[in-house]
């Protein structure tokens, strides 16, 4: 028996020793610049189909027609060298010459055409199907020119090209060959090895069109489901970049030293009140709810400070955009809220089912805080939290009240027609307001900036008066080790790791 005991002890020892040696092995690798990222996306990379493409993997493999400058917010040419339109209906894109896909084939107008037409494939369920349904026809007069004719004028159409779903694919793209196991684009990095739900290894695209880029030789991405695990890898020096960390971890990392936390942009959390069903069909109830909310508490619950890291307003337009109109918060007023509720016919309060994705960042915190905050005014929120994908596929769009995360649309009009237009496909609050519809139509067709802005101003006032949504802006935080330089991620959410380097 003692023998067994000894054997097991020896085993433990051997295993530990093996571990130590393994640790040493990694350091022996020659002098390459390697950027290591840990993120929660499992591995999914099919462009157009899932949100996870916003993470590091896709933007490194693929390119877009137009990029956004992370610092200035200006549009900069990428695969398209210039884009022009006269009336907002016919758009001409000139393409960059000499760009090659990772498999050596040339990048041409056919590829762009394929990428755009793919959005309308019904079996795919492309996330941009709605945005591009406005496209009438796509012509390729020569290999480096694409002419797009729209059904109606859309002066901000070029912004649609910056969306993360619009990575330019080779026209030979299909699941079988270039699908999830062997993705291929024109991007700064080439896929070397992909282990789904585990890790991906990317190497520098030596023939990248942008001279001097990418700066790193190798990109290593770990798919770690658990954010805490990712952070511990960062702390242990195993990785350099961890996106989507929580404010608490931010505080910790900053306290530890050797790390920095950046917030490239903010995301929105829309609290939607369905306009077509009880009780929020009555604007008094919506107003009552708005009066019951204390944004400061909400911000604290999200571990931030209102006005510094967290923003709150009653319109869907985020404060970082030029189109935003500053309207002061109405402030919490429980008495007023009760009054309004009584006026609406609910003197004893009311119960509402509140649906949300329980595993989405900030989801649980916001839901629980709202429940607490609005209870004194007479609202009883019945929390219905579901895993995010279940929430989205089964409950979202069909709930009296819901909480959903929204990425930033660089052009707010895209968002408005999607989510607040009465016939909008993602009109989660079932908003049906003639004035808002009218304003959205005007904004989309208006070429003159000042006029367009005046419509935006009026629209935001209308939202303040009778809108169906509350917008909580939460920071998107990325934890970095101190030696990471030039981490860029514009509001398009596309990380531009090609600029990043390790000192």
């Amino acid at each position: 028996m003692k023998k067994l005991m000894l054997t097991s002890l020896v085993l433990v020892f051997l295993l530990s020793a093996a571990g130590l040696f393994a640790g040493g092995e990694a350091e022996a690798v020659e002098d390459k610049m390697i950027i290591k990222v840990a993120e929660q996306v499992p591995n999914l990379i099919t462009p157009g189909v899932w949100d996870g493409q916003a993470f590091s993997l896709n933007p490194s493999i693929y390119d877009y027609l137009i990029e956004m400058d992370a610092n200035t917010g200006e549009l900069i040419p990428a695969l398209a060298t210039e884009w022009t339109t006269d009336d907002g209906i016919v758009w001409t894109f000139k393409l960059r010459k000499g760009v090659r896909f990772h498999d050596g084939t040339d990048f041409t107008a056919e590829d762009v055409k394929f990428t755009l037409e793919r959005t309308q494939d019904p079996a795919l369920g492309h996330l941009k199907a709605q945005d591009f349904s406005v496209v009438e026809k796509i012509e390729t007069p020569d290999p480096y020119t694409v002419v797009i004719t729209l059904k109606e004028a859309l002066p901000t159409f070029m912004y649609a090209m910056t969306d993360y779903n619009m990575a330019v694919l080779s026209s030979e793209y299909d699941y079988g060959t270039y699908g999830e196991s062997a993705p291929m684009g024109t991007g700064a990095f080439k896929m070397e090895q992909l282990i789904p739900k585990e890790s991906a290894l990317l190497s520098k695209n030596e023939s990248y069109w942008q001279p001097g880029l990418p700066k790193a030789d190798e990109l290593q991405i770990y798919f770690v489901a658990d954010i805490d695990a990712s952070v511990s890898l960062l702390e242990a020096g195993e990785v350099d970049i961890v996106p989507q960390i929580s404010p608490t971890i931010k505080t910790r990392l900053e306290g530890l030293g050797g790390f920095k936390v950046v917030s490239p942009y903010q995301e929105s959390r829309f609290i939607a009140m369905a306009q077509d069903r009880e009780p929020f069909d009555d604007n008094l109830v919506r107003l009552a709810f708005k009066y019951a909310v204390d944004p400061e508490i909400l911000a604290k619950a999200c571990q931030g400070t209102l006005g510094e890291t967290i923003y709150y307003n009653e319109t869907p337009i985020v404060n970082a955009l030029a189109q935003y109109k500053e309207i002061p918060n109405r402030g919490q007023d429980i008495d007023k809220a009760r009054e309004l509720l009584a006026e609406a016919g609910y003197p004893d309060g009311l119960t509402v089912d509140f649906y949300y994705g329980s595993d989405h960042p900030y989801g649980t915190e916001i839901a629980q805080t709202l429940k607490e905050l609005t209870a004194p005014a007479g609202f009883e929120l019945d929390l219905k939290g579901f895993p995010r994908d279940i929430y989205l596929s089964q409950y979202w769009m069909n709930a009296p009240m819901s909480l959903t995360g929204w990425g930033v649309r660089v052009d707010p009009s895209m968002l408005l027609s999607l989510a607040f237009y009465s016939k909008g496909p993602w009109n989660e609050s079932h908003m049906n307001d003639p004035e808002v519809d009218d304003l959205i139509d005007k904004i989309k067709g208006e070429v003159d900036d000042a006029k367009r802005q005046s419509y935006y101003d009026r629209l935001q006032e209308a939202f303040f008066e009778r809108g169906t949504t509350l917008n909580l802006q939460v920071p998107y935080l990325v934890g970095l080790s101190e030696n990471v330089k030039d981490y860029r991620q514009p509001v398009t959410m596309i990380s531009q790791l090609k600029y990043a380097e390790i000192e």
Partner: protein
Amino acid sequence: MKDFLTMLKRSPAAIIGISILLLWILIAIFGPSISPYTYTAMDMENQMTAPGQGGHLLGTDSLGRDVLTRIMYGSRTILTIALMTSLFSSIAGIIIGFSAGYFGGNIDTIFLRVMDIVMAIPPLVLSMVVLGILGDSSILSLTIIVSIAYTPATARVARGALLSCKGFEYVDAARIRGENHLYIMFVEILPNTIGPVLVEITARFAYSIMMIASLGFLGVGLQPPTPDWGMMVIENKSIIREAPWTVLYPSLAIASLVIAISLFSDFVNKVMVNDK
């Protein structure tokens, strides 16, 4: 009963176990009503305060909710679910296991095979798959699913207990008296299997607590803001360094309750089964 108390006096482990269990039951019954907070009440002045500060005995979590209050409410949830699952699975197990063991023959063979098959899926995996796919974990669905997941095991125990009594001649005596099957199973045999059945119920009780905590940990258990201990651990895992109490105390609660029940179960086993 007197024997029970005498035995109890001689078993310090059982006394500890029963005391902790009683304490938790008392907490579950009275705790919430003596706490100045509710389990969702947020004290935004005191986010992640250490135990003892700001009027929070065991500190607060990242939303400023009182950890002690949440643990007290949580004891209510977990005790209720665990008790119900252990009772339901035991009752179902007794009915199934007794029928199979009593009638024997093909019924028994089929029963054993079916149980083998169901038992091949670990209860945690079974519950996880069903709850995960349903996506909606209420106290009710959790109770039903965990009960079902545990039923094969309890049925096996019940069947074994019945078989150990079935050979006794008092069963034969009842038969040749013309008693019907139900009478024999539930009036003659059941009281004599009470030992192993009670042990099974108490052991199941402990397992249920671990299972519910584990499901909570995996995120397929109860949904927030229900104060579930396992969920409290996972919810606060990311702030374990900043506010270790938010993880430590729920963990301790789980451990102490499971240990207490296990000690109690051991004692029941000693008194009701081994001494006979």
